[in-house]
């Protein structure tokens, strides 16, 4: 699917109430989902993972959304929100966090990768559920910088 075509589709959705659109064609899959905070979009041509999000139309909103910092996973593994099953999660939505603070662990083969926050701010959204597998580069958290 060409970038221009995707742009056209996004344009088409603007001003409508459609929040999700999914198209499958010739081994490629595109999913556009419109949510409050997400502003980036990506196309995955090999029909692997849906997860494309269209930008919102209002310029002011886009400016506000673009301030959010996305924390991604540097490895493939299992997402753990807490240091142990009995412990409370490292962070919850709405928590104030500091740069360098641990947000979660991504585990692969007994290698515990502590994912740290890139910035001082507030946890705006947690994008993955506890115990779920995550891919390389997969967004995990959205942080609203202080």
């Amino acid at each position, binding site marked *: 699917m060409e970038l221009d075509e995707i742009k056209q589709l996004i344009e088409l959705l603007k001003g409508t109430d459609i929040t999700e659109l999914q198209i499958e064609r010739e081994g490629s899959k595109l999913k556009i989902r419109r949510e409050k905070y997400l502003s980036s979009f990506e196309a995955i041509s090999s029909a692997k993972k849906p997860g494309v999000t269209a930008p919102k139309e209002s310029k002011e909103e886009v400016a506000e959304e673009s301030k959010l910092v996305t924390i*991604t996973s*540097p*490895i*493939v*593994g*299992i997402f*753990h929100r807490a*240091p*142990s*099953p*009995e*412990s409370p999660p490292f962070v919850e939505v709405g928590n104030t966090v500091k740069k360098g603070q641990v947000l979660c662990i991504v*585990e*692969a*083969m*007994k*290698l*515990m*990768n*502590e994912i*740290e926050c890139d910035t001082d701010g507030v946890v705006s959204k947690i994008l993955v559920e*506890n*115990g*779920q*597998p995550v891919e*390389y*580069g997969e967004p995990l958290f959205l942080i609203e910088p202080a």
Partner: protein
Amino acid sequence: MVTKEKFDTVFHGDIIGKEIIFLESTTSTNDVAMKTGRKRENPEGIVVIADSQTHGKGRLGREWVSPPGVNLYFTVLLRPPFPPGEASILTLTAAVAVVSAIRNYTGVNAGIKWPNDILVNGKKAGGILLEMKAAKNRINLLAAGIGLNVNMPLYELPEDITSLSTSLKMETGESVDRVRLFGKILAEIENTYKILLNGNKRALINEWIRLNSTLTKKVTVKSPDKIISGLAENINDNGELIIRLPDGKTETVNAGDVTIVKG
């Protein structure tokens, strides 16, 4: 009697053991090592060893039993020059180093349970837990924590794990010189790490396969989102375990607790 000097001087390689920090007692050598590593410009090769730990770390908050005077608890700090996604090979590398040292120095026929538990006669004698701080494209700090039950007597083990755990001495009846074994393990870590730095990952995977006691066995893997049972068929180039399910399909696993099904 444990003396600082003995552990401090037993091995100094080109990379590993350039500095060995000995502590009589600490919370966890991984915690001390991570804190130490963050303060150093070049932490690679620093080793932290303790005679006992008050909060020895296992996977996901589990405790590693760490009484004084009998076992080895230590952490090796590394900063491998490859992307974080390739760091999991170090899990296998550490296990290869520890099992090679045990076999060569003590003659005990230790084996590896995927990915890196040290087994003797089917019971766990050692565990390895790696912790990493990484940016998107590089590893800032990696701590390889190793706990090995050397001369620990049975009564030191909590009752609920006596059927699953052991020490080298419990299996052979012979005491092992902890300091010398520690030196041999560091030397093997240096060897295997150099092989990795030279780009010969395949040699390490083959060595893991030679020393493992998981493949060709029936296993159950418990991960947070599912339980899988099947035949442990192989590991891939990332060290992930490939399991042949009863319906003939395969599943690739990169985290979870593996139990070898007896019989």
